[in-house]
């Protein structure tokens, strides 16, 4: 049997998820010029949120999604005003250490509160599947893909057509010119950081019925998100989508077609990060970023 259709559809479904995972990081960097190293832990929090709502109250992750997205936004808003705003003009190393520290703190609190045990949400669609032609479609993955597409599309539409979304792009492009348009840059920063955290939390919710949930799940996802964002060019949303597809296809095809491929696939993100930084530091679509 030809495995290509299966690999292809798996890659597409994964790419949708990867886009959602990386787009928040990309937005945060594009607007604030800060890479939020706690983004992985935001994903983890989203996954736990979905898990507890499902386990304790029987709420379907798709129902808790909007709720947790709002909570994620609020968390980002508070984090911005409480800490991030104070390092906006600090050296990059300070910003990295700060967000990294926030991530570590969240991770340890999660271990204390919820132990390191692996968990998962198990709505019906998590395990059911259907066969279309030669392709097996796990409903959980299709659901996650659909949710991701809806959210990324909403983000793009907001950036493209809303008054505030347009202002957000303007701040990303030229901060002082944006001020001259009457845009409150600090408000846009807080908003972008909030939206970026909300997107990470959303990622956590949709992976809660695909992957195992542990306090440590965030870091590998952060590495992949960084690889995607670098691949697409820091700060470019279109580039992030391309980057997500590139990584998803590379990983999926390596794991299907190479012997022991699924082991190698996990290393692709690292290879990409190193390779791109050596060969084309500005990514596929991105502009050069001054540091």
């Amino acid at each position, binding site marked *: 049997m030809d495995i290509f259709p299966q690999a292809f559809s798996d890659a597409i479904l994964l790419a949708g998820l990867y886009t959602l995972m990386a787009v928040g990081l990309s937005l945060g960097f594009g607007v604030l010029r800060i890479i939020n190293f706690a983004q992985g832990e935001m994903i983890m929090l989203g996954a736990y949120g979905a898990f507890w709502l499902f386990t304790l109250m029987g709420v379907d992750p798709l129902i808790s999604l909007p709720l947790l997205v709002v909570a994620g936004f609020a968390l980002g808003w508070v984090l911005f005003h409480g800490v991030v705003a104070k390092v906006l003009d600090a050296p990059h190393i300070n910003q990295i250490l700060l967000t990294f520290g926030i991530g570590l703190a969240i991770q340890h609190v999660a271990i204390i509160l919820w132990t390191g045990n692996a968990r998962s949400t198990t709505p019906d669609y998590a395990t059911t599947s259907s066969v279309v032609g030669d392709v097996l479609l796990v409903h959980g993955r299709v659901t996650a893909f659909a949710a991701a597409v809806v959210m990324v599309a909403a983000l793009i539409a907001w950036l493209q057509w809303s*008054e505030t979304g*347009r*202002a957000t*792009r*303007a701040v990303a*492009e*030229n901060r*002082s*010119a*944006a*001020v*001259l*348009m*009457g*845009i*409150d*840059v600090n408000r846009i920063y807080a908003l972008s950081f909030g939206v970026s955290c909300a997107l990470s939390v959303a990622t956590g919710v949709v992976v809660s019925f695909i992957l195992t949930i542990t306090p440590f799940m965030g870091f590998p996802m952060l590495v992949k998100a960084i690889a995607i964002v670098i691949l697409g060019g820091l700060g470019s949303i279109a580039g992030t989508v391309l980057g997500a597809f590139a990584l998803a296809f590379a990983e999926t095809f390596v794991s299907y077609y190479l012997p022991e491929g699924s082991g190698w696939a996990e290393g692709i993100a690292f290879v990409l990060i190193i390779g791109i930084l050596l060969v084309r530091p500005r990514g596929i679509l991105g502009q050069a970023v001054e540091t």
Partner: protein
Amino acid sequence: MTALLELANLRVGYGQSVVLQDVSLELHQGEIVCLLGANGAGKTTTTRAVSGLLAPWSGEIRFAGENIASIPAHKRVELGICLSPEGRQVFPNFSVHENLLLGSYSKKARQRRAEMFDEVYGLFPRLAERRTQKAGLMSGGEQQMLAIGRALMGCPRLLMLDEPSLGLAPKIILDVYEAVATIAKRGLSILFVEQNVQAALLVAHRGYVLANGQIAAAGTSAELQNSTLVQEAFLGKKPSLLATDGARGHSAAVPAI
């Protein structure tokens, strides 16, 4: 009558170095005032202080009688202070139309958006033809028109233009100044910075000359045209014994229109 804009003993600089030592000037409703000065004199610094991008060290910035020195820059746009900055600073990846939309971001301007679009596209038909083009792909002159148009979209009470002729061919400079003259006829108050002294004094009612962080000369355009100081500094003419020097001294008042 109180001035629309009044700078009183403004002192401002960057880091440790002071640029404007002690600058006082005023602009009345409906006036066109130009700010002249050599490279590095502090003209752009003045526009940045008025628009709020730079906080004054001391002194006052009064707008319509109110001290706005501590009002953040984005709120000054709401008050009606709109700047077309040095180097144009258009958003290169935005279309012409989107740049103009951003120009009318402030609440007040948003309500009059349709009207302002008509006005700006009427003033610069070039922009109307290229409304979907990316601003970064436009020529220097077109970008300058866009920067001015974008500032106009904010429904300014005070329009500031920082070197609108910089780097443009003479033919285009004429186009740009024709537009400025058209805007001025509608009674808008304009403060503009210009290197091209001849062009500036043709358009402006009055002018100030900045040197050494202070106002070195002030007067009506005619007065400045004939002033020794201005002739020596900008026009490359030898000082003539007959040249009037009446323009020194601070406010040669011109009746507000």
